[in-house]
């Protein structure tokens, strides 16, 4: 692919079950070349910078439509990047989690280009619905930008969930795979959000950390995937019915966050006692 992309990553990109054309581009513009570079960067963060623990991968189907639904935290969407990395590096065959990104992303140069080339599209119902009908793996954060704006003290809490994802799951008969993400708040310990600087840069806000910039710290992260949840119906049900389903997913995610916190506490206490737990294998060993 290029000198910057290892053979193992290039091979995993080739194994993605996506209909790339002779130019290495799929009908949505996802590009093998960009994926190779993107996952080379994620490889460093996933395997070397952060310690990422993942459980429950057996709950994610190897192929076919599914919706990964989880909590947002960590100011700069580290959670989304690590979920995408876990699907690529840990699944066999690898899967590409395609995200529903905030609308501002598509307005920004380079960000717009890279997000679309790597399968992260503007969060529109039309996109989500079409990707699911095409049997893709969708990643959704129903908290939206409100989720990443959580301060350090709120890092493991859940804010308001949108309900569109449940209606869509019902309409397209898609299983919801809940996941809990833990550690994002520690990676980017946000003490405040600057909405003024954000406006100047064309983004909703900029997280402010004790060391000012929102650069993430190399901390222990935990992703816990839960069992698939399916909801029967057409998606056109009354709000009360839909909100009931949303609450079920939210409660399940809260449980998965708690499970991840326990694992994280266990690993950190082991670290403090000097017995470092085995680090996740690198991509080279996985390929």
């Amino acid at each position, binding site marked *: 692919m290029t000198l910057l992309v290892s053979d193992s990553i290039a091979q995993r990109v080739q194994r993605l079950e996506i209909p790339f054309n*002779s130019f290495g581009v799929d009908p949505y513009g996802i590009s093998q070349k960009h994926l190779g570079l993107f996952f080379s960067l994620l490889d460093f963060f996933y395997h070397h910078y952060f310690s990422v623990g993942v459980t429950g991968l057996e709950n994610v189907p190897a192929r076919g439509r599914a919706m990964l639904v989880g909590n947002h935290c960590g100011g700069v969407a580290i959670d989304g990047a690590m979920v995408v990395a876990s699907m690529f590096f840990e699944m066999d065959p690898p899967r590409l989690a395609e995200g529903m990104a905030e609308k501002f992303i598509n307005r920004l*140069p380079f960000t717009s280009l890279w997000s679309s080339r790597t399968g992260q599209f503007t969060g529109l119902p039309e996109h989500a619905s079409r990707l699911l009908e095409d049997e893709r793996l969708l990643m959704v954060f129903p908290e939206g930008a409100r989720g990443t704006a959580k301060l350090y003290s709120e890092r493991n809490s859940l804010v308001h969930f949108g309900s569109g994802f449940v209606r869509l799951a019902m309409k397209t008969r898609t299983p919801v795979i809940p996941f809990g993400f833990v550690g994002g708040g520690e990676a980017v310990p946000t003490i405040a959000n600057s909405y003024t600087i954000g406006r100047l840069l064309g983004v909703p806000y900029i997280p402010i950390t004790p060391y000012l910039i929102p650069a993430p710290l190399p901390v222990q992260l935990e992703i816990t995937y839960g069992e698939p949840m399916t909801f029967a119906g057409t998606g056109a049900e009354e709000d009360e019915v839909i909100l009931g389903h949303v609450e079920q997913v939210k409660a399940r995610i809260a449980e998965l966050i708690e499970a991840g916190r326990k694992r994280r506490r266990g690993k950190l206490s082991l670290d403090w006692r000097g017995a470092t737990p085995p680090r996740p294998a690198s991509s080279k060993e996985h390929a």
Partner: protein
Amino acid sequence: MRVLIPGITGQLGRMVATRLLEEGHEVIGIDRRPWPTAPAGIEMHNVDLQKRAAEDVFRKARPQAVIHMATVTHLVEQTEERYRINLGGTRVVFDNSRACGVEHVIFVGRHTYYGAGPESPLYHTEEDPPMAVSTFPELADLVAADLYACTALWRAPELCTTVLRMCYTLGPTGHGTLASFLRGPHVPYVLGFDPLFQFMHEQDVVTAICLALEKRIRGVYNVSGPQPVPLSLIIRAAGRVAVPLPEFVLRNALGRFGLPKLPRAALTHIKYPVVVDGAAFRAATGFKHAIDEAQAIREYRDAHPVPASRS
């Protein structure tokens, strides 16, 4: 079948006319522009579509079908003249068709009517509103002509009306907006953006129009061929040099330094994609493109090699 083609002298009109003639149809053409090399079987009328003489052609020829291709798409035309031709001409086509007992009218439009923008869905279906009317004001008359044609679906129920929204054409004749944009040795695009472009080989475009006629489909249909491809990739595959320029530089450089002349609103179309879902047309007609995206670019490149650099 007796088929009348207003706008026959355009590159696409000529190809459609020739194909229909080969398929055994009777072809009558109306165009202000002459077509001296028209095949012998085509009955040409060099008249203005909006003049009395064109009405006479409808009355005397008694066509069973009309393929309306007499819209001006060159953005350098004077706006008032374009409104006269595109809106007035479309009205005349439907009025004359109804008056002369035409059974089927096909309006050949463009996929760009949907408009481009950061919050537009990547794939547009026929239900999407044509947002180009606000995002690309220079296309307003074409959008209006398309919508006027759509009104015939309920205004003239005795007519079978087909509105086709075709994606860009690319092929050896070098005809069309995308082909013109790629003409020079250096092709600019907006730094940091690289939208998907959807195009069809010109012979597939002709096939699609002929299929719409043959199947006599009624309604609005997006017509697409192979999957879309990023602009920078098309530029390189066409043998050109892709020149990324910051948006403010490109905006001021268009039409100068050998760069293509484009209205400023066209910049949105080289920042964000306009891609259509052609599933309904494929389901209704069985259309399948014969030439893929790589071959279409190759044929364009071979027919239009990179112009020699001036230096």
